[in-house]
């Protein structure tokens, strides 16, 4: 009697630590892939990752165990993830370029979260999303270089003006649907790109140089920190800075996604007419999706401008739009975690393939192709919303979860 009880407890505690431990393994693999230049190491880690992935998706027992553990260990999982995110840059003191890749990945995550509201949740095919990103970046850069405003005012203005721009772009698309809507968004993307290229105050194709770094209470992020006798590159400062914004963006996205706003977005995507007749103001919801998505893009644009210190129209062309769209589709439409993972992979991959020179986009394309073959509905699929405190037997909840 006693021994069987003990056995149960032991198994229970094994389950408890399972997903956080797994997360650490995955983080270690990703770390090795990103930080090591040695191709043997990278390929080995990729193979290990693929092995884990197949074990998860092909062996039902493993999947059930992980799903169960993920449900019970949410807090521990979160703490592990955040701690890892905090410690990692300190170990990369001598490789500022790797930290740079991570910063770009974080900015991409903010971008993809924004686009997900439009493409994933509301079903608006937006192929000109880089325009919002550009508007944010240019707003912030112009305000801080021409008017000398502080970063904090600039970034808020960037978010708001970009949201306003998104709302304005949304207006003409209300009358259109699917392919036509995609065309309108392409047109807006191109118009914005051409305007940035040709207007005087944007600096034309030369862009804007010498964008000042953000300051926190008078301390510039461009000054490196000395800690325990080590000097850390300025990328470390920026990494933490952008990480805070990325976490904020993630939390806010989650709030919106889990609320009725997210639900009504979904209703618009599923059937606009039925949504209207159910009492959802579909025009308002679509404009809201445009505005929220554009707001996040504006914030991301501002962070990018102040981090790199130089922007030009080339950063915000059609290519960028498609790249962000790829992140959302590959990560898993309408799934915030999936979109984050997709953004990370698709922003790190091109950097890893830099040694392939001209062929690096080909390699990225190959990754997308493989992902779409093995996970056609994204790395993490769209899930049925399960409400806290409203579980109706485990079978039902699980049935809702798995739909292959």
């Amino acid at each position, binding site marked *: 009697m006693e021994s069987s009880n003990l056995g149960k407890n032991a198994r229970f505690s094994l389950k408890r630590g399972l997903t956080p431990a797994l997360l650490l393994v995955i983080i270690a693999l990703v770390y090795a892939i990103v930080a090591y230049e040695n191709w043997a190491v990278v390929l080995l880690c990729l193979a290990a990752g693929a092995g884990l992935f197949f074990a998860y998706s092909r062996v039902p027992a493993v999947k059930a165990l992980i799903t169960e553990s993920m449900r019970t260990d949410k807090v521990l999982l979160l703490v592990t993830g955040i701690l890892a995110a905090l410690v990692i840059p300190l170990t990369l003191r001598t490789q500022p370029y790797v930290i740079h890749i991570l910063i770009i990945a974080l900015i991409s995550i903010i971008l993809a979260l924004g686009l997900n509201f439009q493409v994933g949740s509301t079903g608006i095919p937006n192929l000109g999303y880089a325009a919002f990103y550009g508007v944010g970046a240019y707003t912030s850069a112009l305000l801080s270089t021409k008017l000398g405003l502080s970063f904090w005012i600039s970034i808020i203005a960037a978010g708001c003006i970009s949201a306003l721009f998104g709302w304005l772009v949304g207006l003409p698309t209300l009358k259109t649907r699917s392919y036509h809507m995609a065309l309108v968004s392409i047109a807006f993307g191109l118009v914005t790109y051409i305007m940035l290229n040709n207007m005087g105050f944007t600096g034309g194709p030369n862009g804007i140089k010498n964008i000042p770094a953000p300051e926190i209470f008078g301390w510039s992020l461009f000054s490196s920190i000395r800690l325990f006798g080590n000097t850390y590159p300025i990328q470390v400062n920026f990494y933490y800075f952008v990480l805070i914004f990325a976490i904020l963006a993630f939390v*806010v996205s989650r*709030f*919106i996604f*889990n*609320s*009725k*706003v*997210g*639900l*009504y977005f*979904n*209703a618009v*995507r*599923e*059937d606009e*007419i*039925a*949504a*209207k*007749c*159910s*009492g*959802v*103001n*579909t025009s308002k919801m679509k404009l*809201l999706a445009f505005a929220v998505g554009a707001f996040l893009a504006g914030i991301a644009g501002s962070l990018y401008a102040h981090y790199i210190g130089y922007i030009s129209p080339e950063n915000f062309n059609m290519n960028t739009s498609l790249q962000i769209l790829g992140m959302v589709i590959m990560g898993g439409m309408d799934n915030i975690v999936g979109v984050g993972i997709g953004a990370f992979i698709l922003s790190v991959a091109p950097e890893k393939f830099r040694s392939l020179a001209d062929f690096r986009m080909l390699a990225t394309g190959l990754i997308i192709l493989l992902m779409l073959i093995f996970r056609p509905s994204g790395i993490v699929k*769209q899930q*049925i*919303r*399960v*409400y*806290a*405190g*409203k579980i*109706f*037997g485990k079978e*039902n*909840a699980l*049935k*809702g979860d798995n*739909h292959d």
Partner: protein
Amino acid sequence: MTEICLSAKDLVMRFGGLTAIDTVSWTLHKDEILGIIGPNGAGKTTIFNVVSGLYTPTSGEINFKGTVINGYAPHVIAKMGIKRTFQQSRLFDNISVLDNVLVGMATLSKGILFKSILARKRLASELSEDIDKCLEILSHFSPFLAENPYRRAGDLVPGERRKLEICRALASDPDVLLLDEPAAGMDPNESAELMEDILKIRELRKGIGIILIEHDMAVVQKTADYNIVLSYGKEIARGTFLEVSSNPLVQEAYLGSEAENA
């Protein structure tokens, strides 16, 4: 006589040269079930599309609780208390049964963006109440749906889909319910169940007015208090089922005239 909740006067709907509805009038009272019948292409669904705001009528007026609602946006009309179902049940397929009904309560929620970020406690308690209400509605019409609220709506069988659509429409406690051919594609057992459901709506929601478009004569006979028969957009008869079914014009519209058949 009970109170009137929805009336239409000389309603006309034209699409270019085609007159889909030609001066049709009706009054719907509280607790009444009005049947609209007629052969294919008679303009029955067009009437629903006009009443629910998807089309703006060419002329005539629709009066709901003393307000002329011509040309109002569909979500405004839904908010005022007119809900509908669709001929090919239009559910939100990729979200759950529960979420479908929750969207049906959309007219009741306010300030959701603000609350979703800054007043999350209040939002959570409201949501919890809403969910309980949804489950209650589901349990009245289908124990199966009430027990499986997290099932994907797209995986339901047609009978359950129809029930879910009715639950979604009823979620916001409407004053008028428009049912567009709920028995389409159902076998006799299923349509018998449906008849019970329709009568149950009237029992559960005191004061609701229901307009029913139907092809299945058995359903109309058992449920509708009063019928209007349309043919090519024009009203050709009205009255109780017995009255309209014995009307030679109605028989001609459904079966063709003797001259044509000869």
